[in-house]
Every structure is written in C-alpha cells, then in structure tokens.
C-alpha cells in the first residue's frame, strides 16, 4: 500500500454508505487531484465507526480530526482549508463522546472488521421481501444505467475489465463467457443462475438469495440484456425452501414493477425469469447436467466442447454470487472492483465458515486475504483453544490445507497450487478432533454416492477408493494401499468425463500428502489418533476422575457400564458399541477415548 502524509478514513459502514459516503469519496479524490494532493493525502474506506447517526463521518489521521454529517459539497471546502491550509473545518467538526462505550464497535470486532461486502452489500440491512428496500439501497440503478445508456459491448468491457471470475468454482472469466454467448447467432438465448449449491458444508448462495434476491435478479437481467437472452431460470436446490420462497416473491415484485416481463423500463427489452427446483443431486450443479435437468432429461454430464446449450440454444450459466457482483461493478466501475484482490483474482469472495470454529458464519473478504486471517481473526479460532489442524476448501472437489500453509493468500491460483481449490466457497475448519482418513472416506462416500455413473473411471474408481479407505478405517488397511490410492487417483483425474470425477481424488490425495502419518497410524499401528474411527478406538473410564455418579451407566444403551454409586465405574468392552453416549454424559471428563 502507498503511504501518505495524511489519511482520510472515510466510514464505509452501511449507514454512511446509504447517506452518500461513496459520493463523498469520489468528490474528495477529485478535489485532491485538482490541488495536486493525490499523492499526499489518501482516502481510505474503513469499517463502521459506530457513529452512524452523524454519518457520513470521516477521521483524518494522524491528527485524529473527526468530521461528521458530510456532504458531497463539503469535499472542496475540506480539501482547500484542511489539507491545503492546514485549518480543520470548524462547522463540520464532531467530538466523539469521551466516555468509552461499553459495547465494542463493529470495526473492533474481528469477525466484521476484516470483511468487505460487495456481493453481500445488503445483508442484514434490507427486508428481502420488499423490493422498495432494495431500490432504496441503489437497487436496479445499475440496470437502469445499462438499459438506458450502455451498449452490450460496453457492459462486457466493463465486466471484463473488472476481472470478475465465476464464483461457482472454476473461476472462468465472466466477461469472456458473456462475449462468446453474445456472438452466438442462435436464438432464443437463455440465462441461468446456478443456485444448486451442492457442496455439503457451504451456504453462501442460500444466504445471498435469502438476504438479497433482487441483487441476483438485477445481475441476471443485465446479463440477459448483454447477450440478448429472453428467458432465465434460477436453479435452486429443493433443500432451500426459504430461498425458493424469497426468490419467487422477488421475481413477482420485479414483474409488478415491470423490471421483468415485456418492455423493461420502457426500452423494448423483454426478459423473464422462472424458478426451477432441483431434486437432490450434487451433479446437477455441473453445467451440462444442470441443463439436462431443466430439459427433463437424465441429468448426466456430457462431453464438452461443444459448448453447453439449453434446448440447443446458447445459455449463460453463472453462479449466484457472480450475478450478485454484477450490479455493484456497473455502479462503481471496473476500476474500483479490480483495485480489490490479487493479480489474477479480483474483488471479494464469500466463504462459509463451519466446522470446528468459534464464529461459524458467512464472511465476505477481499481476495488475497490469508487463510490465517480468515480462521483466526475472522473465525475467532478453534473452540476451547484447541489446535488448528486443517481447513477443507472447495468442498468435495477441493482438498485439505494444513496448518503449515495457513499464510497462503486466498485466490484461485494459489489454492489450486496448494492441491485444493476455491470451489464455491465452503470452508470447513478441522481441529485435532477430526480424523483426516475419516474425512477423506466421508468425501469419497459422498462422491461415490453422487457419481451419476455415466463414466467408468468415476463410477468404479470412486467405489474402489472408497473400499480401500473403509478398509483403512476398519483397521484392515494394507501398507500398499496408500500407493494404490495415489495411482487410482491419478487415473481417475485423467480419465473422468466431468468435473466431479476429475476433482474426485483431491480430498484423498491432498490429505495423503499432508497427513500421511495419520494414514500410516491407521494401517501400521491400528490406531486412530483423532479417536474417530470406531474400529480403532476403545472407551475406558479414568479411575482417578470418575466420581461414580452413575450418569454414564444410566445412559448407556448397551448396559455395558457397571459400578457402584460413588465408586469408579468400568466399561465392559465386549458389550460396548462405541456410541459415545458415556463421553457426552460424563461431567468429569472421566471417559477416555484411545
């Protein structure tokens, strides 16, 4: 980052933004340039200061001068008086209350302060069931701009320049995708929003649709105008009933306002959207399977090229988050968007943090942020101060990233290089309580189940890998199994038809790379270090800690625990089914798993 003599920390909290903070930023920058001060004074947007009532507010550092209730017109005055002549503008000054507020500010809370909201710009701020609230926060402004004053080529140029890449996983440049469909002479054309979100453990798309459905709709209409499409579908998983409901309502409201349907904004452009509900098949998230599903055919992926089509016609398929980014890019410009992020990955990415983490939830962060920041600063670390073991990114197609790579900046290329991938943005945090072999087995079980069965490498390969992993978890692993897994993985990756198969070995290969010792412990020592794989663990009671409260014995479904009240108990290993009930029941940590 460039260093400046003086920094204007302009509040970018939602309150200030809705009162025109961005306009003030532009005006300040304009004025600074006019006075050739742009290299001396920097204008930086910050998190909320907590003085929303006086917003927009700005703090000038290092002098700590606090301005309030700023207006666009004030910019010239401030620059001239304060930055040129060094005299703070008295009328705009504000003295924050001296006593410290007992409640921390949002900008002091790690979970919020490192986030930067673009796709989630309206989260928690608007009522998603009221289109007016969306419009109240600059909604459909980008659409109006596009329809009334921009040519398709210009929009595509803007999107391309912004560096926006698909947020559904593969990271294909969105502008390039649109351009190729725009040039396709066949009509009618279609727009699809992929809200299938099959990654188990991810919920970004659900949240966006539930919190701000209109941002997705607006993005889709812009996309439709650009490529010349007349019909759109939102493909939503059936597991998301609330998202379906809100999306349906949003579409109806948009129709009522004439934002969908014929002659949108009186410009003669027609476009409408329908909802298509999935029925529980992970592979339907893959584009060729998705279109087959809409067409009512068996949703098996097909060979590409030729390019994916819907009813033989061109179709643009983008992820929910991709669409939600589009209006923001049009409103604020490609330059702004591309100023965020890394060399190859621009903007922000929404991740869903889950698993063994204190602050589970949805976070939107600039690309290039490190995993450490996400896990510890935002996520607040692992519960009970346990040690971090690994993070699984990219869902079943991704891989595990161990603690040693926590400083990896998050972008498409870096994650690929680390043997994982961006995926749709699920992040599962694992502590020492998670067994890496079990997790790999879990993903293989999932993928084996979800493999559509069309191509042999994926169908048979996943089955074979699963059998080996199950064997290892059962304590019947053989030393040569690990090499076989690696070999199989390579073959499957090379030979599979669609993305599901091609990325299927990732969870196994990456955990083999980073946690080979755990596999070896299962195979050679017949031990599960994390205490997860049932066949390899035993439950015992620590005689020292047991107070003889009988709680475990009462709860044991097998009546495997015996002992007198107030005397240490014992577990009959022949009867124990390792259900773990005693472990949960014990208040004294006396049940040991080894």
């Amino acid at each position, binding site marked *: 980052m460039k260093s400046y003599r003086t920094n204007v920390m302009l509040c970018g909290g939602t309150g200030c933004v809705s009162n025109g903070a961005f306009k003030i930023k532009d005006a300040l920058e304009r004025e600074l340039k006019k006075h050739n001060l742009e290299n001396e004074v920097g204008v930086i947007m910050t998190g909320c200061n907590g003085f*929303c009532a006086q917003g927009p507010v700005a703090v000038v550092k290092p002098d700590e001068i606090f301005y309030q209730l700023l207006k666009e017109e004030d910019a010239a005055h401030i620059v001239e008086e304060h930055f040129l002549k060094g005299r703070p503008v008295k009328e705009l000054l504000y003295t924050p209350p001296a006593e410290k507020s007992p409640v*921390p500010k949002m900008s002091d809370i790690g979970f919020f302060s490192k986030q930067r909201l673009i796709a989630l710009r309206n*989260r*928690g701020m608007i009522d*998603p069931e009221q289109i007016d609230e969306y419009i109240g926060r600059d909604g459909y402004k980008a659409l109006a701009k596009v329809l009334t004053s921009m040519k398709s080529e210009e929009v595509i140029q803007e999107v391309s320049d912004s560096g926006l890449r698909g947020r559904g996983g593969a990271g294909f440049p969105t502008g390039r995708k649109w351009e190729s469909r725009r040039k396709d002479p066949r009509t009618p054309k279609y727009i699809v929003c992929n809200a299938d979100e099959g990654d188990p453990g991810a919920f970004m798309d659900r949240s966006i649709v539930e919190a701000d459905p209109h941002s997705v709709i607006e993005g889709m209409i812009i996309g439709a105008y650009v490529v010349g499409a007349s019909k759109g579908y939102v493909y939503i998983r059936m597991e998301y009933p609330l998202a379906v409901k809100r999306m349906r309502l949003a579409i109806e409201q948009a129709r009522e306002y004439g934002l969908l349907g014929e002659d949108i904004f009186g410009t003669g452009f027609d476009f409408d959207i329908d909802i298509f509900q999935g029925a529980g098949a992970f592979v339907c998230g893959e584009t060729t399977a998705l279109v087959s599903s809409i067409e009512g055919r068996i949703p098996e992926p097909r060979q590409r090229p030729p390019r994916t089509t819907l009813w033989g016609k061109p179709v643009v398929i983008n992820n929910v988050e991709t669409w939600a980014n589009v209006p923001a890019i049009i409103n604020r410009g490609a330059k702004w968007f591309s100023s965020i992020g890394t060399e190859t990955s621009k903007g922000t990415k929404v991740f869903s943090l889950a698993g063994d*983490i204190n602050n589970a*939830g949805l976070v939107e962060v600039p690309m290039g942020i490190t995993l450490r920041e996400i896990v510890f600063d935002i996520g607040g670390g692992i519960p009970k101060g346990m040690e971090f073991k690994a993070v699984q990114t990219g869902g079943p197609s991704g891989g595990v990233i161990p603690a040693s790579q926590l400083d990896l900046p998050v972008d498409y290329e870096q994650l690929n290089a680390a043997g994982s991938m961006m995926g749709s943005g699920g992040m599962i945090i694992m502590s020492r309580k998670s067994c890496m072999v079990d997790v790999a087995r879990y993903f293989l079980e999932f993928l084996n189940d979800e493999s559509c069965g069309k191509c042999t490498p994926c169908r048979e390969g996943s089955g074979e890998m699963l059998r080996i992993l199950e064997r290892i978890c059962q304590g019947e692993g053989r030393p040569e199994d690990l090499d076989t897994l690696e070999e199989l993985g390579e073959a499957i990756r090379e030979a599979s038809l669609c993305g599901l198969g091609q990325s299927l070995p990732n969870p196994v290969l990456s955990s083999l790379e980073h946690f080979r010792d755990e596999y070896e412990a299962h195979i050679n020592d017949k031990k599960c270090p994390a205490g997860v794989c049932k066949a390899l663990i035993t439950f015992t009671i620590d005689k020292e800690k047991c107070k003889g409260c009988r709680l475990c014995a009462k709860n044991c479904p097998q009546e495997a625990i015996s002992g007198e009240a107030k005397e240490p108990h014992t577990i009959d290993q022949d009867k124990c089914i390792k259900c773990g009930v005693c472990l949960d029941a014990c208040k004294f940590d006396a049940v040991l798993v080894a």
Partner: protein
Amino acid sequence: MGKIRPEDLEKIRERMARTINMREGDARARVTVHMGTCGIAAGARKIMSTLMDLVEERGIDDVVVTTSGCAGLCSREPMLTVELKGEAPVKYVDMDEDKTKSIFSEHIISGKVVKEYALAIGSERVG
C-alpha cells in the same frame, strides 16, 4: 404501483432513504430480526412474535419491527439489530424470549443499551 421507469427509481430511493435512515417520519426506533434459514432454525420466529406481542401489548406505534436476511454470524443466531433514531445500530446475539423482553424495555423503550447481550455497535463496511 405499476410499471416503473428509470426516473421512478430515484423517487423510491429517496422515499426509502428517509425511512431507512429514520431521519424523518414518526419512527423512533427500528428493530430488525435476522431471519435467514439459520436464524429461523435458531428460533428467530419466536423472537419476532415476542416483539410483535410487546409492541401490541404496550400500544406502541413508533417502533418499526422488520425482518432481514442472515447477518453473517450464524453461530450466534438468533440476532437482533436495534436502531434508535439518531443513534448507531446495536447488534444483539444469542437471543431468546427473556433477553428480547429486557432489550425491549431497556433499550427500545428507555434507550439504554443492554451490554450483556450486545455484540457490537455500528454497521458493517460495504464496498
């Protein structure tokens, strides 16, 4: 309202800006219950109905109770945002009925932040 034109957007925006920011109008406070799937699963509906009951019981007409989507911190749901006119919004986490009641009488009615339940004051950074 029927079909709108680009110029109508500005009108709606202005109208909404006034109500959203509570710069004008009768609303003295706005309470937002975050109702995404997680929020609802964690019990946001109950919080909502508790609030509605309280508003009705006391015959209050200057408090707006509204809903919104997920606020992001799913593990601390249900969440509630209370915003009094002229003050920064305050986010409350891990809500239940009793906490809602005390926040209602202390913060919404008497204007004192209930710091035991509050997570933070202010709003998030956008863009």
